[in-house]
């Protein structure tokens, strides 16, 4: 803990790690890392100190990203904020959330199946079936939002994005274009991940405490601690 002024960690590492750390922790965490880094340099081996810093910064970013993902994907922590929170209550919340997600998927599947069957039998095959699939996804997203089934909402939004993209590609290049399971899985995976990353970033920025009038970035780092 006995640090010497003037021994700063590599600026590039600070710049790489900084943006990924939660604003509420960023200032203190980077300060702690700098203090410990200076203490390690004072012991002589700067290369080892650089390696130590890189490892700690990477671990801090990993922890921060996982924590943000959990906050985004799981239901609000409002229920667990009370001091009398117990593991049982927390497990119950997770179980209810999983049930709601399963219910949302089941509802989506039934609605989509009916829509596609009706489109197939009454209006012919493609592209009406694709429109039915998109409509099924849209209804599924609305149901998932109503049921507060977040994971299913992201998944069905991704599937809807994939269906729209597929319809456009087939309309331009023909029904036989962009076929095959790997292509479908790749595009659908990209759509689902895109929606999830978007939701993650939206949740992250919504929780970012920005001082009034201050710009994002360095000014946001010195925001006062949130009163609990």
């Amino acid at each position: 803990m006995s640090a010497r002024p003037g021994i700063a960690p590599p600026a590039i590492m600070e710049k790489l790690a900084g943006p990924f750390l939660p604003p509420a922790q960023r200032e203190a965490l980077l300060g702690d890392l700098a203090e410990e880094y200076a203490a390690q340099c004072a012991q002589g081996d700067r290369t080892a100190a650089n390696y130590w810093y890189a490892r700690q910064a990477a671990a801090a970013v990993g922890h921060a990203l996982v924590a943000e993902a959990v906050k985004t994907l799981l239901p609000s922590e409002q229920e667990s904020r009370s001091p009398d929170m117990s593991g049982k209550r927390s497990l119950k919340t997770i179980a209810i959330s999983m049930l709601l997600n399963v219910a949302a998927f089941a509802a989506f599947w039934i609605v989509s199946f009916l829509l596609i069957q009706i489109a197939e039998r009454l209006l012919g095959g493609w592209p009406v079936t694709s429109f039915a699939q998109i409509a099924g996804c849209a209804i599924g997203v609305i149901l998932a939002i109503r049921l507060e089934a977040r994971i299913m909402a992201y998944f069905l939004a991704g599937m809807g994005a994939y269906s729209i993209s597929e319809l456009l590609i087939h309309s331009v290049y023909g029904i036989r274009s962009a076929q095959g399971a790997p292509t479908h899985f790749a595009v659908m995976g990209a759509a689902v991940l895109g929606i999830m990353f978007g939701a993650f970033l939206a949740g992250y920025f919504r929780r970012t405490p920005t001082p009034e009038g201050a710009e994002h970035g360095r000014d946001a780092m010195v925001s006062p601690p949130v009163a609990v």
Partner: protein
Amino acid sequence: MLAVMSLEKRAYGVAIRDELEQRLERDVSFGAVYTTLDRLEAKGFVSSSHGEPTPERGGRAKKFFVVEPPGLEALKQSRRTVDAIWAMSPIRGLK
């Protein structure tokens, strides 16, 4: 929380991590320390305040933590639970 309590008014990131490493005899990352403290703060178990920025920290302030009454109560509850489980242990002298 016990580490924060034992450090009293000196409980900030570096000191807490040092205390944990000393007690647990293993490496503890700053990321793990801050993620845990963040969750405890969100639950109202600990609160934080900023110190003065210092040059050896690149002009950054320390963030000091203190355990709040709900945190103390949670610690007591945890102790009671552990004691109750140990009371069931068939191994004598390990209560």
